């Protein structure tokens, strides 16, 4: 099945612009028939990716943009978010569930994304910045909410 392009946005690096993306994202996901619960989890994951791109990638430089691309590939939602920063190594981050990190005020953004989406991948963007790809099945057996049982791996 060919991929279907839904939207591409470029926003300036201001936190308030996250809300603009959310409006378009919500409309798009509702058109895809995503239920309210699943939509809210995707919303949160995208918020985290945008916040990271604005804060850590573009260092809140309003002249740098964050690019958001949303496609539906087969029955999977694929959202790519790319900044214009200098790149980022996600392996340097600590485990936010480790006892020594539990009371840290930061370091949970990528954990949020991993929890709320089926898959996330970090890579280099075309412009040399960081691109994160978020995937979530929107139809079929894996289209479900995140596990909240802390005994899960």
């Amino acid at each position, binding site marked *: 099945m060919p991929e279907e392009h839904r939207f591409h946005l470029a926003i300036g690096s201001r936190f308030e612009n996250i809300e603009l993306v959310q409006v378009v994202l919500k409309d798009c996901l509702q058109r895809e028939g995503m239920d309210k619960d699943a939509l*809210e989890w995707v919303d949160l994951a995208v918020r985290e990716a945008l916040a990271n791109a604005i804060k850590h990638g573009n260092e809140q430089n309003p002249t740098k943009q964050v690019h958001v691309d949303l496609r539906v590939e087969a029955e999977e939602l694929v959202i790519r978010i790319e900044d214009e920063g200098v790149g980022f190594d996600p392996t340097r981050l600590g485990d936010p569930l480790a006892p020594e990190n539990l009371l840290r005020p930061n370091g949970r953004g990528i954990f949020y994304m991993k929890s709320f989406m089926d898959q996330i991948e970090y890579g280099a963007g075309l412009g040399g910045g960081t691109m994160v790809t978020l995937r979530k099945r929107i139809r079929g057996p894996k289209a479900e909410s995140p*596990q909240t049982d802390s005994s899960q791996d």
Partner: protein
Amino acid sequence: MDVSKRQVGDVTILDLKGKITIGTGDVQLRNAVQDVMNSGANKVLINMGGVSTIDSSGIGELVSAYTTATNRGAKLKLYGLPDKVSDILTITQLITVFDVYDNEGDAVRSFA
């Protein structure tokens, strides 16, 4: 996000309403907690019932509020968590850190 403060006996309650997200709600929460701490309050209850969305920055502010209160010898507790907020605290394992209550009455009595 809107924050309002009220007093029930010697317990200071912060009622939060709206989004606790990066750049807006997280800063308001930080300032509100700082204000009540600076006023000398040592029994602080946060009513989460009106929170529609909380991102990792908002969670970070809750953690900071908890550690600030604890370091000052105060108690900070939560009540009325919406399902999504409760799920997030469970996923992040912070549900084991915070004292969480279903309703205001139980939460207020817990300080006695």
